[in-house]
């Protein structure tokens, strides 16, 4: 499931972080395109994620953070520029790492999930506090359901089939996972002012899991002088697999090249 796309002697790497109950599969195409644009790309499956729902129930947000931080530190030893890119929970994780590491070269936050307030959140969400903060969170899971974060119907059908096979992501979202994500979001919100790295925020105005409120919050509260906020209109939550995936790649590459101290010709020289 994990992937790495590498060039010889590259000095720029992007660490991609997948979303809640997802897997590196959802970032693969996006990663391939970043690699084509001259970046080494790495993406590993976060702790607890995979096929077994029991593992994720045992996982705390600190486990995700420590794992991703270690990955970042390893990359930092080998590259002069390391960027963080994440979707959903991965974006929150990227922000959390950047809050701690001033040497992160830049952040791409896609569908950042600081608040769960999208339009597919079930009608009984008012019961969530009862489920989240009592032992009931260990028993409650809500099923991944149509539209699976995807507006494009062809891709949606494929994802739906893959989810039924339980091969690329969990087909249920355990409440424990939501709890840990919200705990991590709380920490990130508290110290978001510490983020002064260049940041690109991409969010769909039709995101089914988290509304623009999360992206607005990040844009308004980070201390970054270089910050860009793009609202996409033709996707749901999983932008990197949806109708706007090419636009997301294009904007990401433009952003990364604009903040990189290496220009493309220098890189080609280095790599040849």
């Amino acid at each position: 499931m994990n992937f790495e796309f590498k060039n010889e002697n590259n000095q720029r790497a992007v660490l991609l972080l997948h979303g809640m109950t997802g897997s590196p599969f959802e970032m693969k195409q996006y990663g391939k395109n970043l690699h084509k644009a001259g970046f080494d790309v790495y993406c590993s499956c976060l702790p607890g994620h995979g096929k077994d729902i029991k593992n994720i129930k045992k996982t705390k947000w600190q486990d995700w953070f420590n794992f991703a931080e270690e990955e970042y530190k390893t990359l930092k030893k080998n590259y002069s520029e390391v960027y963080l890119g994440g979707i959903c929970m991965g974006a929150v994780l990227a922000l959390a790492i950047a809050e701690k590491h001033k040497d992160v070269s830049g952040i791409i936050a896609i569908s950042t999930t600081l608040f769960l307030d999208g339009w597919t959140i079930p009608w009984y969400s008012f019961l969530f506090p009862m489920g989240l903060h009592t032992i009931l969170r260990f028993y409650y899971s809500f099923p991944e359901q149509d539209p699976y974060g995807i507006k494009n119907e062809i891709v949606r059908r494929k994802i739906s089939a893959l989810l039924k096979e339980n091969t690329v992501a969990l087909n249920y979202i355990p409440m424990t996972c939501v709890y840990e994500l919200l705990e991590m979001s709380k920490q990130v919100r508290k110290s978001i002012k510490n983020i002064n790295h260049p940041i690109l925020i991409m969010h769909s105005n039709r995101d089914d899991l988290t509304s623009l409120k999360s992206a607005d919050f990040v844009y308004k509260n980070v201390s970054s002088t270089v910050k860009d906020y793009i609202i996409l209109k033709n996707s749901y939550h999983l932008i990197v697999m949806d109708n706007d995936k090419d636009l997301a790649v294009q904007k990401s590459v433009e952003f990364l090249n604009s903040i990189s101290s290496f220009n493309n010709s220098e890189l080609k020289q280095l790599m040849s």
Partner: protein
Amino acid sequence: MKLLIYSLISFLIFNSSLIMAFIAGKVIFKKENINLSSNYSIFLSVLLIFYFLSILAFNLFSFNTKYFGYGILILPFLFMPFIIGRISKYERINFYANMQIITLIWSFLAGVLIILGIS
């Protein structure tokens, strides 16, 4: 006074329902049927809400009466499910589920003592 009694009776009803529902839950959750577990936990959430409301109602109706002390007595039970939820871990979920049932039994006994005290 009537409202005070009614709120105490509803507290006892929801409390005993929760005890039974949590005990039944130990069997239901063991089956590892995700849909069944999820629906059952929604049912438990609803019961918990009514349980909390009944504690709040009793406190409200006992305010400014000589029974106010009884309200204070059962108030900690409002927070117990959240405290247990905060400290619980998936690896020892049976232990914490038992702890939840035991605190519900204590609160039920407290409710019975209060009703005896009032009458």
